[in-house]
């Protein structure tokens, strides 16, 4: 999925799965909200599997300074 989106010059970033979506550390793709419909079409066309596409109200904040 990542390679496919990148080859189409679409935004995609490999990210840890947010806690709200999974209790287990894992990998997700961070994509733009406005691209979701197109991504679903691409997945359908190219037979790319995904568990789900979810939106969260989580803004990154590089001045939060919480490091775990």
């Amino acid at each position: 999925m990542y390679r496919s989106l990148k080859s189409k010059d679409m935004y995609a970033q490999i990210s840890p799965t947010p806690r709200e979506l999974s209790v287990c550390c894992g990998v997700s793709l961070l994509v733009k909200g406005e691209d979701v419909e197109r991504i679903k079409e691409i997945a359908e066309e190219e037979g790319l599997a995904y568990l789900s596409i979810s939106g969260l109200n989580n803004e990154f904040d590089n001045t939060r300074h919480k490091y775990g």
Partner: protein
Amino acid sequence: MADNQKMWADLGMNLEMHDMLCEVLPGAIGDVFMSQENRPAAMDYFDMVLADVHGLRPSELVEFRNNGGKVFGTFCAYVPDEVIFAAGGIATGLCAGSQFWVPGGERYLPANTCPLIKAMLGARFDKTCPFYRLADVYIGETTCDGKKKAYEILGTDVPLHVMDLPQMKREKDYLKWADEIKDLIAVVEKTTGNKVTAENLAENIKKINIKRKALERLYNLRRNACVPISGTDTLLISQIAYYDDPERFATMVNKLCDELEQRVADGVSVAEGKKRILITGTPMAIPNWKLHNIIETSGGVVVCEETCTGTRYFENQVDESGATLDEMVQNIANRYMGINCACFTPNTARADDVIRLAKDSKADGVIDVNLMFCQTYDIEGRSLEERLKAEGIPFLGLETDYTDNDAQQLKTRIGAFIEMLG
């Protein structure tokens, strides 16, 4: 993802407690890394390794062990990976960079012990890190008093071999370190059942040299006026260097460097108008990104780290001309004794390194940052400051730990320092 849970359970981890760590890490990674703009595309590999830090590499180590392989956990840049890989083992760094593990360590250690050492014990005894569960043997080293005593406690729970690092740099100390490496060879041979030979050692000297060269190439690219990659991203790469497969890691770093060279040629910078900072001091293990994050959100860009998660890890190669096992071991000893850690006396060569690197990196200022209760680095701060002042290089000395409590204070001090640089 379910496989991770099963793997962690099979490794005897405390899943409930580990879950609490999983809760905070994605947010921290998002804030520190994903929020950055204009990152190199080839950071995607390192993002993936980080995003599944307790899944991807551990699952490879599980498979390796299922096929009879042995994993050696290490804590320090002085432990020579070459001999471990030569015996068919895998060396993996055991990070200890999170506040999450500190309270667990404080059950065994005095509170006034450095957070890295406390986190080491917490990660092991709380059973919340798969790497600590996967290492068959731990390799310690006598680089500070706190670690020496902590190894005695760790050794009650896991097979542990301590390398006795000399604390001076006389000729006899170089010979002594070669002897210690021979003792390590005996340990890895006994554990793996494989012999270290001139052939497999020569091959692995080359392999680890290639990895060091890749990191050197990355660091040299940061010296350009156009800084093609942030210090935060580079720190992550240096941290991953400790536990990734060395050949794959070198390939990925070189791939990134190809892109960074193009960025430099195209004049792409992630640090337009920012002040160039060299960091020196104690190591920063995953997920300790505090200083880089604060500096790079306060008008600075980190262009070099003279730390164990920086230049000390990769500067100087092992001489590849050794023909016999003894010559190779001595060449390995010579390379590692060239690292300038504050555990040595005297250690004036570290200040020489900082000055050289500050000039080569065109640093506007140097920040010396030490983990709380790290006495040797703390004491060296004074002489380092004097040396840098004599060279006209602005200097800021800081002490911190893994908590978030002092982030705003650090931000104020670092912000003022960067402002002072004009």
